[in-house]
């Protein structure tokens, strides 16, 4: 092979010419390594493995969508846990106001309606109206 240099060029300066270097590159380009059989087999095994993994993933049935319970839907409907906490607080406050109304509530109602009411948890009627009717009936002998 002519390496792009003449003997004169080589002797003069002893430097590799561009032509010689290009010829060396060209030789390397055409001397690409053969693909070893073992490597080919490993590459194709990988290809099959990846293909099988993907096909298996596609064939797998999707996870069933679990329907939310009534309670979960209620909580979600009112705005989640913070809203639920607020609702609880409001409920307790309402209950407390109903059982133990502050004085300004009862006086305010009296001023509007012109009636006087008093309230004590001990004044709850422990006898139902039905019991009263039963008593009436039995005392009249009916």
């Amino acid at each position: 092979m002519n390496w792009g240099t003449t003997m004169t060029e080589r002797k003069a300066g002893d430097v590799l010419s561009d032509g010689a270097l290009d010829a060396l590159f060209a030789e390397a380009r055409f001397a690409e390594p053969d693909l070893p059989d073992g490597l080919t087999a490993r590459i194709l095994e990988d290809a099959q493995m990846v293909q099988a993994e993907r096909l298996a993933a596609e064939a797998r049935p999707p996870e069933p969508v679990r329907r939310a319970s009534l309670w979960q839907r209620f909580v979600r409907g009112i705005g989640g846990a913070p809203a639920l906490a607020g609702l609880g607080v409001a409920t307790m406050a309402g209950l407390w106001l109903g059982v133990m109304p502050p004085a300004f509530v009862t006086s305010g109602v009296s001023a509007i309606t012109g009636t006087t009411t008093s309230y004590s948890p001990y004044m709850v009627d422990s006898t139902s109206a039905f019991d009263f009717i039963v008593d009436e009936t039995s005392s009249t002998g009916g």
Partner: protein
Amino acid sequence: MAFDDPDAIPDDALLVLYANGDAEAARQLTTRLAPRVLAQAARILGDRAEAEDVTQEAMLRLWRIAPDWRQGEARVTTWLYRVTANLCTDRLRRRRGGTRDVNDMPEIADDAPSADQRMQQDARMDALQGALNELPDRQRQAVVLRHIEGLGNPEIAEILEISTEAVESLTARGKRALTRILSGRRDELGYDDD
């Protein structure tokens, strides 16, 4: 699937066929692309076993990306050269300071030259590899892609993720360095002073 003329099918179309479950497409892609990956890796790493590992890893990444490949957006070869370059860079960083043996170079495929010719060719390729090994990593990658793989500067710029001007600079400096190194190894190249 059997291909009447496999060479007529573009790489990206083969990749889509592979993603759709075609095993023959994988074989065609391997035959077409793996030798180029192996050559690139071997020239950059100067080590046969490592080059084979890189080739397998680069092809594995190709198989994995196949379902997401968008036809027409990038060339498969460019993508593969880039993956190979990055894998080689990682390995070179890991073994920084280690030694490389040019005798680990891949065997040379040729048209049955005589024993003398074969030995002389092996000696030249070893000398070239030895000189390539002395270049800085980026210079070596640019020189291999430009002068041995025969790619254009814009494609190399895309592969190495640098500007075209930077590629020109790297290859020019690389060639100058190779000339300097190989000038001292004329006997290995078969330039006997007679």
